[in-house]
């Protein structure tokens, strides 16, 4: 195993991109090239950073020159309202990148998606498998862009069978650094829910997202895989675990607002689309265990309890002091690092095992 695998990570300056790059660099079986329009806020040791946009027509040239085998596509701009610039980056950028990959003979592409692309609909089964037709709503910018990209992926799989495309669909991500509609919903001063509805929810811890993507890079699984933490919770119980009191609103209120005021005001206090507060959108995670052989380190309940601690502390001005007493967390980190070190010394190519 002398050869190192060349891997390119787009959107490396984002929090997830940085963590994944670090993880891959630790394993020493990889040469990691990071691509992003902006420089990472702090330098990543050992990372070969290239400042470029994924829409650049010379990307294919770059991929060929660097002999890239795997592209991990994380470059995605979250947006609440559909807008042209984000659409251009997210959808058109992805299209151009995929085209460049096919042209340069890249073997594998990994793409991070969301389980909410299935959509929250009243007639959905309780657990949605990967082959479920996508019925997500196009109200939010991110939702629309993801659905467009998923459609693109579908076409790409048929047109370029020599490049395997792995899509990881993650449940809403929560954690200290994650900034997703779910974390915004849980951090807001009040948590609106729809009166008389208590849909089932899934979440995943941000650390597990990193591990899952690294695991997917290691394994040769292809196709689409749903990833969520163990445990499906009713929304009201989820809010209870985070330590928030739900604020019930009659269910037609958010729908009226969107009808009357369009997209201008609707989403400002509804970080989660009303549909997801009304109906469940729960993914079947069987394939995650069997095909990806990945078990999240945090169960949904553990992730939420940890998030509750973070939320409570966020009210106090000095987060750094509060964390300096957080022995548990540091101990966990030290343990993990120690284990990772032992493991990489043992066999550099051994896939990550769960702690």
């Amino acid at each position, binding site marked *: 195993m002398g050869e190192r695998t060349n891997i390119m990570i787009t959107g490396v300056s984002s929090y997830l991109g940085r963590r994944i790059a670090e993880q891959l660099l630790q394993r020493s079986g990889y040469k990691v090239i990071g691509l992003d329009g902006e420089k990472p806020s702090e330098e990543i040791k050992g990372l070969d950073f290239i400042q470029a946009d994924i829409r650049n027509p010379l990307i294919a040239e770059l991929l060929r020159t660097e002999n890239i085998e795997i592209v991990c596509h994380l470059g995605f701009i979250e947006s609440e309202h559909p807008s042209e610039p984000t659409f251009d980056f997210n959808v058109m950028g992805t299209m151009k990148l995929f085209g460049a990959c096919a042209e340069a003979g890249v073997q594998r592409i990994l793409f991070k998606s969301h389980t909410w692309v299935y959509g929250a609909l009243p007639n959905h089964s*309780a657990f949605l498998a990967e082959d479920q037709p996508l019925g997500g709503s196009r109200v939010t910018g991110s939702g629309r862009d993801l659905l467009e990209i998923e459609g693109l992926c579908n076409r790409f799989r048929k047109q370029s069978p020599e490049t395997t495309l792995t899509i990881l669909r993650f449940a809403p991500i929560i954690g200290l650094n994650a900034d997703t509609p779910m974390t915004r919903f849980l951090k807001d001063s009040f948590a609106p829910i729809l009166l008389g509805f208590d849909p089932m929810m899934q979440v995943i811890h941000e650390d597990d997202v990193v591990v899952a993507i690294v695991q997917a890079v290691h394994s040769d699984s292809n196709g689409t895989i749903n990833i969520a933490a163990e445990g499906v919770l*009713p929304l009201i119980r989820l809010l*209870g*675990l985070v330590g928030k009191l739900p604020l019930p609103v009659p269910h037609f209120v958010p729908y009226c607002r969107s009808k009357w005021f369009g997209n201008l005001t609707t989403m400002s206090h509804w970080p989660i689309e009303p549909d997801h507060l009304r109906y469940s959108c729960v993914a079947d995670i069987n394939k995650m265990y069997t095909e990806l052989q990945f078990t999240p380190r945090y169960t949904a309940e553990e992730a939420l309890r940890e998030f509750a601690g973070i939320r409570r502390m966020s009210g106090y001005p000095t987060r750094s002091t509060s964390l300096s007493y957080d022995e548990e967390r540091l101990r966990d980190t030290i343990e993990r690092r120690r284990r990772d070190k032992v493991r990489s010394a043992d066999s550099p190519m051994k896939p990550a095992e769960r702690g």
Partner: protein
Amino acid sequence: MVEAANTPCSAVTKTGTPCKNTALEGSTYCWVHQSYTPDERVMEQDRVDSPVNGEDLATVVDENSQEQLAAELDEMISQVKEIAPDYTPPPFSPKGLMKLLQENIDRFSPPVRLQILERLRSGIGEDMLDIDTWKGIWYMLNYTVEYQSDFLKRRLTGDYETDEWGLDMEFVDTVRPFLEFMHHNYWRVETTGIENIPNEGCALLVANHSGQLPWDAAMLGVSVYNEHPTQRLVRTLYADWFPTLPFVSAFLTKMGQVLATEDNGARLLEKGEVVSVFPEGIKGVGKLYKDRYRLARFGRGGFVRMALRNQAPLIPVSIVGAEEIYISLAKSNTIAKMIGFPFFPISVTWPWLGPLGFVPFPTKWFIDIGEPIPMESYQSGDANNLVLVSQLTDQIRNIIQQMVFSRLAQRRSVLFG
């Protein structure tokens, strides 16, 4: 009527002791035993008139029951200690114990209450319950009180259990008294063939649907939960209209009911649950009064496919009595379309009486659970065999129709059975 002084009744009560009432004039029997035949006077079973006393009970409660009680208590205590290891009850005192007993005993239904009291009483009579057992009872009762004051806090902080479908047993226990009232007192449901449901492993109950609102599904659930020896919770598959309704959707989810899709049903059966389906669906529940007890088309056979996929036995169930709880005379499609309902019944009371129109008639119900149709002889691949699926669908529909008709033939009155 003058009673003969001091002549005791010569009948024998069920516990084997002589009757303590005084005999009526001109008879050797008291007023209770006066009307009985000679056999009944000796073998009298249920009409013990004299107050229950300790001696009588000593013969009723067998030797082992005290040990059993002690063992059960020990087990309960160890369970509680597992959940709440830090809990220590307040110091033991007989007075406090009696007070706790009084407060807590009212929660149980009269037969259970009597059973508890009889057991405790007999324990004292036999001197078998030593102070430790009483302390055990003290511990348990105190824990119950503590647990209930803790309830609200746990609900608010999300510290309760739900399964992956959303079933919340605490919620079920809260709603149960109402459903049991409807079951025992209002509709006086009589259930037969409960032994046809296996003690463990999956089974698919297939029943006829009726009654405008899905009361029949709830009553079938109560019947199985209360009368089955292993207290099986039935997972009913409901129509996809219910999730769109506020409160109803949350209620059904918390009760462990699941949307009717083939995937959901198959997954539940795979987990070894008892699933009930009403393949007539909306067509069945919205039947007009003139069409009562005539089964509608049985869906598209999805329930047979989910049974075949898991080789789950199909158990036909007939529910009689639910058709008459609302008398639907007509259906208005226009109103239904306007308010987004799948159907809008015009009944004798609805919508004329407003909310009172929801009050169902107190008919007498019969739930007959038939012999299971085993599925082991089929392969799971047979679920794709359209001919087989439609054959089985028709077969089970005919069985249920026959069961309904044979029950109707026996029924003499709609209200009294």
